């Protein structure tokens, strides 16, 4: 359920950077997430793609989650994004 809130935050952060860099297309969004987090790659991609399906910059973007090794911190980082200029 809180995936909507996560995608909303993610979009705001990524969109600002894409505009600053004149990105034509976003191909990949790489996240680094706590190993115990319930955030799931398939769920995030499903919600993200349904929100951006009509947006030419984001419609082909895929979210990838890499689990961190240290579970002691709440870690939810947008590591990097792959864009086409």
């Amino acid at each position, binding site marked *: 359920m809180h995936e909507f809130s*996560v995608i909303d*935050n993610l979009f705001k952060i990524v969109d600002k950077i894409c505009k600053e860099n004149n990105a034509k297309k976003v191909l990949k969004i790489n996240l680094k997430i706590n190993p*115990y987090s319930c955030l799931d790659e398939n769920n995030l991609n499903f919600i993200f793609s349904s929100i951006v399906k009509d947006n030419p910059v984001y419609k082909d973007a895929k979210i990838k989650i890499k689990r961190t090794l240290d579970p002691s911190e709440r870690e939810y*980082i*947008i590591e990097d994004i792959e*864009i086409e*200029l």
Partner: protein
Amino acid sequence: MIKILRIEESLFSENEKIANEVSSILKERKILSFNIMGAPGSGKTTFIEKTIEMLKNDFRFGIIEGDVEGKYDSEKLEKFNIPIVQINTGGACHLEANMVKNGILNLPLENIDILIVENIGNLICPAEFPIGIEKNIVVSSITEGEDKVEKYPLMFKISHICILNKIDLLPYIDFNVKKFEDELKRLSPQINFIKLSSKTGENFNQWIEFLRKLMKEKRS
């Protein structure tokens, strides 16, 4: 041309910023604060009720009640005549820092020693969102089963205190306390673990003494 842009920014950066503001506001006023989390029906409200009942003459309480709908829990606490703010999330499964900030801005903080926030009954989502409250408490009850630590590790990992509630029902339910405790300590060796019954008051003093110790540290 393909380019990789480093971002290294938290997905929850906005929430974390507000959580830090909440934390500063409470720290400045030396208010001890608890974020009470746990599954629906684990006994969070009864635990809060019993805590206030036992300490109402010693400390001044303030409450933020988080629920998806209704004000059932805050009505239960009205008898104490203490400041209560009810937050209804209208569907959201957890409290976020901005909701808690609005809550504390509507409380008379100058008249509060201990702030208790009761989060939405849920073992998943509240664990992902810091709300600027000092101590996370997870209330787990024996009627939920002994497998909760294994199934919801993040909740138990981020909690400072684990209350195992409803121990008065142990004679009637298959619940291996040692198995629960071993799994909890394996996951989170530093966690404070207290077994009690909020209904009968069995072992409740252990929690009360622990809370008094925290208050003493806060005021020293």
